[in-house]
């Protein structure tokens, strides 16, 4: 007679659970591979020696690692990278701060007509770039802001306001009204309530808004090419000139592409930590 004895934790599951799970992971793996193919080519080609680069051997791993590509494009790309940083950092900071103030008065310090103003602001999100291009360029020229980075910053800040306002309005809508009421009774006016009570709990919203604004101003090409002169070109325009030129070796194109997208990745890694943090934990009774 054999007795079964428990040897460890027992899982209660259907007989098909295992095969189903394996299938699911295989499917997900296949999707991941599909989406990562271009990235693979980008990285692998950028690291190849010029002699190994060819379309027919695109998929092969490099036989020896070479940073030649990076060395070649760095001088050409550097001014663009610097310009883009000078563009994207102020844009993400200014539009997040303004979005925070907007979102605060639209959700927690409401004024008569807030319900009309908010949809009007949101409307700005749905206007396509192309529709405003000509009036925008004319306006900037009349303002004397064409050619420099300041005009481009202004344009991106304004274009980003609807989305940052939306982000902060939703975020603040989720915090308790009683917190704001407590600040009012404690003697704080609108600006001090914003500064001392609302902003300190908003880092997650700042992370989202800044990642968004950094990425979109970094990746923008159209406004950059229309509004800046050669010495102020952002990296996207510089990249276009490298990639679009005749006879440019593949590995150089790939290396510059890789360089151009690193900063956005970096911002995501740095700010992404704030995404999930439960900064509101313990604010209220729970």
């Amino acid at each position, binding site marked *: 007679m054999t007795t079964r004895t428990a040897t460890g934790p027992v899982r209660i599951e259907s007989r098909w659970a295992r095969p189903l799970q394996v299938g699911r992971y295989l499917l997900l793996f296949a999707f991941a591979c599909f989406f990562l193919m271009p990235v693979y080519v980008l990285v692998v080609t950028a690291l190849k020696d010029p002699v190994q680069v060819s379309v027919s051997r695109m998929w092969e791993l490099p036989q020896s690692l070479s940073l030649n590509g990076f060395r070649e494009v760095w001088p050409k790309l550097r001014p663009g990278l610097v310009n883009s940083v000078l563009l994207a950092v102020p844009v993400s900071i200014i539009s997040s701060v303004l979005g925070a103030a907007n979102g605060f008065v639209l959700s927690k310090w409401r004024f008569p007509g807030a319900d009309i103003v908010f949809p009007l602001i949101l409307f700005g999100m749905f206007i396509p770039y192309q529709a405003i291009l000509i009036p925008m360029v004319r306006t900037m020229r009349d303002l004397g802001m064409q050619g420099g980075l300041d005009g481009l910053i202004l344009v991106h800040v304004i274009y980003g306001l609807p989305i940052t306002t939306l982000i902060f309005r939703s975020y603040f809508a989720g915090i*308790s009204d*009683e917190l704001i*009421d407590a600040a*009012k*009774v*404690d003697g704080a006016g609108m600006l001090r309530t914003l500064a001392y009570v609302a902003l*300190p709990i908003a880092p997650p919203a700042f992370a989202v808004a800044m990642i968004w604004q950094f990425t979109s101003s970094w990746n923008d090409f159209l406004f950059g090419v229309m509004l800046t002169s050669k010495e102020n070109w952002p990296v996207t325009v510089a990249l276009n000139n490298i990639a679009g030129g005749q006879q440019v070796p593949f590995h150089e194109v790939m290396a510059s592409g890789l360089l151009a997208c690193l900063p956005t990745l970096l911002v995501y890694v740095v700010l992404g930590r704030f995404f999930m943090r439960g900064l509101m*934990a313990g*604010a209220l*009774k729970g």
Partner: protein
Amino acid sequence: MNAPLPGTRPQAANIPLQRARPEATGIRLEQVSKRFRGGVLAVDRVDLDVRPGEFVVLVGPSGCGKSTLLRMIAGLEAVSGGRIWLGDQDVTSRLPQERDVAMVFQSYALYPRMTVRRNLGFGLRMRHTGRPERNRRVAEVAEVLGLEHLLDRRPAALSGGQRQRVAMGRAIVREPKAFLMDEPLSNLDAKLRVSMRAQLSRLHQRLGTTTVYVTHDQVEAMTLGQRVAVLRDGVLQQCDTPQHLFRHPVNLFVAAFIGSPSMNFVAASVSGGAAHFADLRVPLPAGSSLATADRQVILGIRPTGFGVAESNGWPTLRAVPDVVEELGDERNLIIDINAPRVDTDATRAAVAARTADDALLLPEEKARFTVRVPGDHPVSIGEPLDLAVNPERLYFFDPETGQTLR
């Protein structure tokens, strides 16, 4: 009886006033109303006079407008009509920042990114109190409330009771003209609630600050309030000392709402100087205005309005207990009465607002009474016993208006 009962003015004059600090400030509400956008009339022409240093409790079923009234006093909600006075100042149109009252919220609303120390000091900081003075007062209040060892923690790292004390401390530290408290104990467990209630009473005796306290729990209201204002559907019903409220409710709603277990009601008729219900004839108390009346009434008897039948001449009621609730020193008996049940808006609203144990689970035609008898009185389920009705402790209400008939 569908119309809300008309508001009733405060009656009692003999209010025991605690020693008021010389600088204590009174609060006066004159015909204060609030109609929200969308048409809800949350507060309807409330008159209330809170004396300097007094502890007044606003009580009523949830949704009756207590919080709205309190928020109007704080300035967080604009009035739709009427005036609010703090001392001799008309503050009706002042911002909350300018009113110098402190509020304790149900959720505590502690600032999550500030330490306890900064939470406590925030109100002083906003009012430009100098740092040394601020630190001194924060330290003093922290000591009174036993928060010294928590000063450098964030609210997230505190227990519910500790958060509650920080919320209280944030109000105290400012030494405001008045404390406004909106159900501050309702998120605590029952035991802590009772001990905080006692602490709150002691704190008030010590500080003597004018306080308006909101709760839906009539036990809390009765134990804390020097006076208790009962609100129903935005209308102030009665504002009186707990004793007076209990002994002389102005209407059916107040009678049903105050007291635990709640008052028993039965439809009865009055004629020939006596009330008749369930084959029982109870003589009216001496001097009753109903002495010569011949009409239908609603009769109310508190569970404690019965005695054990003895030779005191009280009319007796033979009853069979259905349920016996053992309380140690006392017992609650639930008995069927051979008379129609009273089911009015007022009693239903009052009962629904209370804990479910008072509510009848099944709709029934017959009235049921809860009777409180001494614990040494032998009773058992199903055994008939004689209960004497104390004629002095009967209440009569008009079946149409719900007003007390004396």
